[in-house]
């Protein structure tokens, strides 16, 4: 059984039909990427999984357990870590408090262990513990957001545009961390506009177009596909 499975999911924002029957699977230990243009429904897919948006039709299952009507905080506690688009750091909380919020449902004894683990991944954060979240640079905020998502020790990590708005050198750092997480066996569903880098790190990929999945294949195959190269990798 796949760790996460979406079956014919339809989501609406008011009258806008944002997801028109998405079906996808993420297996344990895999990095799967969701690629598409602006407004294709990538973020909506993640928001529907973590309960911030509700599907009108279809099924979302985490190891066979239906998530459709579970409130977001419970979905998180079931092991779905969602690092939202735009990082969404709590600006008026210190970095330390931001991390504590990420570990809100983690028992105290395990929290320290998890903290050490994320400090290993993001040594920069450790230097900034007492600073307010809002004073961090964009790159640091992204690192903090990912660290915050990892504190929960999620079964699956949903990453929404982690490279958005970052300088190239920081983008490399972010993807470096994703590579490391992959090597450690973390399951990741990655939404990216930077298709090239996303496909390099991923095992499999889905191409999303106006709320529908138009292609699904291994990352290798997608990298080599004519259509993808033209539309998403900017190659002639």
């Amino acid at each position, binding site marked *: 059984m796949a760790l996460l499975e979406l079956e014919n999911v339809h989501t609406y924002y008011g009258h806008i039909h944002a997801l028109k029957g998405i079906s996808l699977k993420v297996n344990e230990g895999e990095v799967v990427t969701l690629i598409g243009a602006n407004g294709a429904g990538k973020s909506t897919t993640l928001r529907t999984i973590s309960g911030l948006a509700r599907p009108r039709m279809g099924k979302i299952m985490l190891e066979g357990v239906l998530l459709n009507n579970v409130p977001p905080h419970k979905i998180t506690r079931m092991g779905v870590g969602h690092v939202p688009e735009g990082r*969404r750091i709590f600006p008026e909380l210190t970095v330390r408090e931001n991390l504590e*919020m*990420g570990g809100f449902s983690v028992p105290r004894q395990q929290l320290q262990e998890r903290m050490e683990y994320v400090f290993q991944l993001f040594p920069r954060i450790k230097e900034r513990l*007492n600073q307010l979240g809002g004073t961090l640079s964009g790159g640091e905020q992204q690192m903090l957001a990912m660290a915050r998502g990892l504190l929960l020790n999620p079964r699956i990590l949903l990453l929404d545009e982690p490279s958005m708005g970052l300088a190239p050198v920081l983008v490399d750092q972010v993807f470096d961390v994703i590579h490391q997480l992959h090597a450690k066996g973390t399951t990741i569903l990655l939404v990216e506009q930077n298709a090239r880098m996303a496909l390099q790190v991923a095992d499999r990929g889905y191409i999303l177009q106006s709320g529908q999945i138009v292609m699904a294949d291994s990352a290798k195959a997608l990298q080599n596909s004519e259509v993808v190269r033209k539309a998403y990798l900017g190659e002639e």
Partner: protein
Amino acid sequence: MTAILRPEDITANKLISSAAEWTLQYVLKPIGQILLFVFIAGGSISLLALVVGFVLQTDWHGIDILRVPARINLFEQVLRQLPNMLLDGITIGFVYAVIALGYTMVYGVLKFINFAHSEIFMLGAVVGYEVMMRLNEAELLSSLPPLLVVVLMIVMAMVVCGGTAVIVERVAYKPLRGAPRLVPLISAIGVSFFLTDFVRAFQALNRNVFNMPYLTDRVPFFNERIVFAQGVSTTYTTVIIIVSAIIMLVGLNYFVNATKIGKGIRAVSQDQATASLMGINVNQMITITFLVGGALGGAAGVLFGLKTTNITPYVGFIPGLKAFTAAVLGGIGNITGAMLGGLLLGMLEAFFSALLPYFPALGLGYSDIFAFAVLILVLLFRPTGLLGKKVDEKV
């Protein structure tokens, strides 16, 4: 190493230093801050009083302290009245500050003004009255230690008002969470009317009374005076009000900044959706906010009752409005701001109440006008309030 401090891995030696650190962080620092605010508020009002007194000092056709028309030297009067004026301002200011916290906390998480909070405050005053009456009927009022009586009154008021605030939220606000902003506001006004009339009907059936005088006369302790200097004295009641308000402010500061739930509430107030992604139960945090805000409002009601000693079901409106004003003055949504705003407004009120009786054309009733005029002036220059930050509206 800046590892997180946990009780488990602190050795005996470290325990002492961390206990000291803890006291510094969560007791001394907030008390220092409160004192600083008292000085800021007191200092600026004293300055204002002295300047006004000095400018208007001579040849004034006013009435003197015995209400006889006379030429008064305002500067002399101000000097004479200043210490008592400050004490008065601090007392009422702390009460406003405690009420204002309820407004500001709820605004912080829901971006909504809970206009029923003034009636929660009134309910607290009534609960305090009831506890006093019951103790009196059981002939315990004069035999119990007065401090215990006060603690009983405050604790009961906190329990009842905290519970009521939570029920009000469930019944009147939660179902309207997604509605346009005006709708819960109207609902709050409705709840406000309901609570007033409920208390009125309840007390009419229960005791057949409308005015509820606190029985502070029965306990000599409440009216004993502490004399600081000649002409400067105060009652133990005042001291009780100030001390309990400070305890509550320090306690709230600890709750909001040091406990997991408090931090969760702050996270929810900054970004609800993201907070829920952290596994924080947003509804639970909102409930706790109403519980804490309501409990503080109830306690403030008892303190107000002790100060004014006469309570009616309509007593909540004006202090509630002023506390709301204090919250706006300090910067709504900002807990520290609510404390500063409360103290400043209390001082302003005390200042004008002390000064205006000298002017027969004006009189005491105008003190609120001047206090609110100052508020308008402040908001003209700082629309976000004194400690409020400029926040961009969320798109």
